[in-house]
């Protein structure tokens, strides 16, 4: 029984899990959907009401019947490395690969359908509220007047993007930025703005949830600091216990969202409240493990390892 890891070759965070799996002798196949077709080969035959098939890459072979679990870590687009890539080829290859994998009886970290839903930021805030987290007032709008009013009401507001920085320009960053009511909001009509009440924070919190295991880490913020990812400070990530209430809400959230893995971002305010900012279903954990020593890669490897298939943990509704 083999663990399938869908990720790029340069993903060293996946290496952390691959080496754990090697230590415990569990067979692994690491495949980048970008390498299909080409370096990787797929065959799946529909016969007797089920798919039977094989995936192979670099001399490693996986039988669909021997699939233990799938970890969707940081895969490339299907067919991205093909000799003649095209949107059509990506769609065809995606159908062949994911269509077959979805038919297999296996556990997913995370199931692509749940992952897709979990990326939607407005939906995240709603689920966070239902799970009992404190969520800062937030607006998504293409109406300049609404953006103006929201900012006048809350005075200190941050702008961030819902989908991350523009992907066609890797040289651009889009840090979360503090703005005030004197901002010119006319350009809101040209693209939706995501505005949120500024939380004066003592610390950033990153909580990684792997199955039912929680790893919370805290990094002290500089006074007045907004986006903790830019600009170096003296402070580093330190392991902290997750308050019981937060733990309950995390479990509630991942159950509602059908996620086996999730990385939560919180801002800790001066009263010690953890404000929910977002939940990244594919959030990076390498930096947390390296700085805190928390055994996250081991937890991921363990989650991927059981032999027996239990579909319930994927939160799938068939």
């Amino acid at each position, binding site marked *: 029984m083999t663990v399938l890891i869908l990720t790029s070759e340069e993903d060293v965070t996946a290496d952390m899990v691959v080496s754990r799996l090697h230590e415990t002798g569990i067979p692994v196949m690491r495949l980048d959907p970008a390498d299909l077709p080409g370096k990787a080969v797929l065959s799946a035959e529909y016969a007797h009401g089920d798919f039977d098939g094989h995936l192979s890459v670099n001399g490693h072979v996986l039988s669909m019947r021997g699939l233990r679990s799938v970890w969707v870590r940081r895969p490339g687009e299907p067919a991205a490395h093909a000799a003649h890539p095209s949107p059509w080829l990506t769609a065809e290859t995606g159908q062949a690969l994911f269509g077959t994998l979805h038919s297999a009886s296996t556990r997913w970290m995370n199931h692509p359908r749940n992952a897709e839903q979990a990326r939607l930021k407005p939906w995240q805030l709603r689920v966070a509220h239902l799970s009992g987290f404190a969520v800062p007032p937030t607006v998504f709008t293409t109406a300049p007047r609404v953006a103006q009013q929201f900012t006048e009401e809350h005075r200190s507001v941050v702008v961030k993007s819902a989908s991350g*920085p523009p992907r066609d320009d890797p040289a651009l960053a889009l840090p979360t930025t503090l703005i005030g009511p004197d901002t010119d909001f006319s350009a809101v009509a040209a693209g939706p703005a995501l505005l949120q009440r500024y939380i004066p924070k003592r610390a950033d919190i990153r909580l990684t949830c792997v199955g039912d295991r929680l790893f919370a880490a805290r990094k002290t913020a500089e006074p007045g600091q907004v986006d903790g990812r830019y600009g170096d400070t003296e402070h580093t990530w330190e392991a902290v216990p997750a308050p019981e209430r937060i733990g309950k809400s995390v479990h509630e959230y991942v159950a509602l969202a059908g996620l086996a893995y999730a990385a939560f971002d919180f801002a800790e305010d001066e009263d010690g409240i953890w404000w929910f900012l977002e939940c990244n279903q594919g959030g990076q954990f390498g930096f947390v493990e390296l700085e805190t020593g928390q055994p996250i890669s081991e937890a991921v490897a363990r989650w991927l390892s059981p032999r027996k298939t239990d579909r319930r943990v994927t939160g799938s509704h068939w």
Partner: protein
Amino acid sequence: MRPFTLNYTLPKGLPTVVMPYRFDTSRQLNVLPNGRPAVSDRDLLLAAGTTTSTAGSQTHFDD
């Protein structure tokens, strides 16, 4: 008109260091020139930035 949110982009210093590891197809992980797995070198990984939260955001929107 440029979408509002793009008024807040900043140029990002792209990493210029070339990482000394390469993907080992048989072990299915990255290795250093001495054959040791890249993950055995904690300082290198931290410096590489490939394990940080901004690194992912370059190519992925859910980091």
